[in-house]
């Protein structure tokens, strides 16, 4: 499994306003009927970006000047609802490398870390300030530093937060946890043998 340290990310921003944006909105269920993630980058916010006849709606993800954006800035409880990893996969494969949010639904945040995408939270006021900056200037550079947990946007600097374990996993490159957990399989089996239901309550 790949090991990649992610200590800082920089890029231009894209802002999506609104609280409680659920994973059904990030990627509608009909796009979950694919057995690989390879095409997910085509689908983020699909029903908010396209009319039923396929014509484009007015949406930040459709703007030419935002096509290279890699830092998504969102509000409260982003990614709530379904546990579908397809949601962060869709954003990641579209080009998003980091999500800055007022708050994040927990499964969504965990899924982001598992694929090496930084998902951090900032205060509501700071997020709204960054959103305003991003919306008024598509070229303003945002820099997320995971070592000292700061976000720089233009001239200003903000404090970012994320669970320490997720931060460690990203900066030490251990976010892809399978190989780590696998190296401890013997310990897992030992724990399993101590649980009465694992041997059907027969010993």
């Amino acid at each position, binding site marked *: 499994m790949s090991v990649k340290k992610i200590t800082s990310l920089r890029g231009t921003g894209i802002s999506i306003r609104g609280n409680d944006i659920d994973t059904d909105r990030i990627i509608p269920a009909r796009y979950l*009927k694919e057995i690989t993630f390879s095409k997910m980058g085509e689908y983020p916010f699909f029903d908010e970006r396209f009319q039923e006849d396929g014509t484009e709606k007015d949406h930040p993800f459709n703007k030419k000047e935002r096509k290279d954006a890699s830092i998504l800035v969102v509000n*409260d409880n982003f990614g709530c609802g379904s546990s579908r990893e397809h949601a962060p996969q869709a954003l990641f494969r579209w080009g998003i490398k980091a999500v800055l949010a007022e708050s994040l639904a927990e499964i969504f945040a965990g899924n982001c870390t598992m694929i090496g995408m930084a998902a951090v939270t900032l205060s509501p006021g700071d997020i709204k300030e960054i959103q305003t900056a991003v919306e008024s200037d598509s070229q303003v550079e945002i820099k997320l530093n995971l070592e000292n947990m700061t976000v720089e946007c233009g001239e200003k600097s903000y404090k970012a937060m994320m669970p320490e374990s997720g931060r460690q996993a990203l900066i030490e490159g251990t976010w892809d*946890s*399978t190989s780590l957990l696998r190296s*401890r399989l013997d310990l*897992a089996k030992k724990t399993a043998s101590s649980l009465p239901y694992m041997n059907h309550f027969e010993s």
Partner: protein
Amino acid sequence: MARNTLYNKIWDSHNVGVLPTGQNQLLIGLHLVHEVTSPQAFDALREEGISVAFPDRTFATCDHIIPTNSTNRPFDDSQAELMMEALEKNTKDFGITFYDPPSGKQGIVHIVGPETGLTQPGMTIACGDSHTSTHGAFGTLAFGIGTSQVRDVLATGCLSMDELKVRRIEVNGTLPEGVTPKDVILYIINKLGVRGGLGYAYEYAGDVFDAMSMEGRMTVCNMSIEGGARAGYVNPDETTFSYLKGREFSPKGKAWDKAVSWWKSLSSDKDAQYDDLVIFKAEDISPMVTWGITPAQSVSVNEKLPLLTGISEDLKKSLSDAYAHMKLTPGQKAVEIPVQVAFIGSCTNGRMSDLRAAAEVVKGKRIHPDVRGIVVPGSIPVRLQAMKEGLDKIFEDAGFEWRQAGCSMCLAMNPDKLIGDEISASSSNRNFIGRQGSPKGRTLLMSPVMVAAAALNGHVSDIRELNK
């Protein structure tokens, strides 16, 4: 931090150790797999030449994509067929039990686990589906996970996780007539909000949960995730044990006695400490109906929809967005909302007690001519039992379609979808925009008996009025 709760006891007994990242390595005792979130995980194992660590603790079924009119193969939808073939191959290659339709046990993964007795107190359970919280009704810690975590559990039987806080939610007193477990959880989510549970496991306790059936507890725990909690549970008790007794995977003979005594030891201690405590009165809860685009946007059925005055700008924007999508008006009476589709089913309300209760409401009556009604049992065993009791006939005589088992119109990854901006009374768990298959579709969440009442009248209706 919480101490001596069921959460702490199960967490501690399954905690393999602390990882270098500071996260804990948590052993997962039961892994439930379905067709949608697993193919990429199995492919990753195949690429690395890894086998499934605990194949005997891993069970698969198919539910999301399965058509509910006919399960004849190949499915009409070639993508659905491909997903099904992938799960067939993966379960065969990796030596995992697969409850497909011919097995007679297929159904929604969160219904199959409990009814086969696979789900038992004291377990950690994971599944690539957020409604895994359902299994907490048995006194388990049950987590919905993403596909990379499905890969972790397949390959290692473990998850890397942070510890949660525990909030005890007590509902004391007696529920008024017409108020069901679905109303209880919609009420809790309305009061605590869709973000209220972030960072928490919810422990449901008090008179109402003590008196509630296992099926009712499953309905409540199922929607914990809609309140932002990572898991929800009820402490195991005699209700739990009598539900489990005699089921296929339940311990038998001496093993049963050992199991019960272990299960009893797991309940939260009388003097357990919690990170938070919230207490509600059962008498304050009425039949509920959602009117908006999150499960928290609900009212009692006899109320008016909320006004946009005297609230914060943030909240005003959220409510305005909801009104715009739902094409409803602030101040409108809930019972004035028309209904064009009635859906009874899903992992929230597709069990026997749900079907029995809804059938009781529509027995000998006809649903409104403008309403398209469908009833979808949660599993093949539920379907067969319902047919044995003649419920299929009652629903069909009333004008409902009686379908085969699956997730159906809850998330519409199958042919069952809303059309255009149809408005649906739904016993499912999510009223998100586009959730029932049409980007413009509108969903009103309510209990199965309220769906039945809405189907009869062609608009949202107070079940208590209908009973008079």
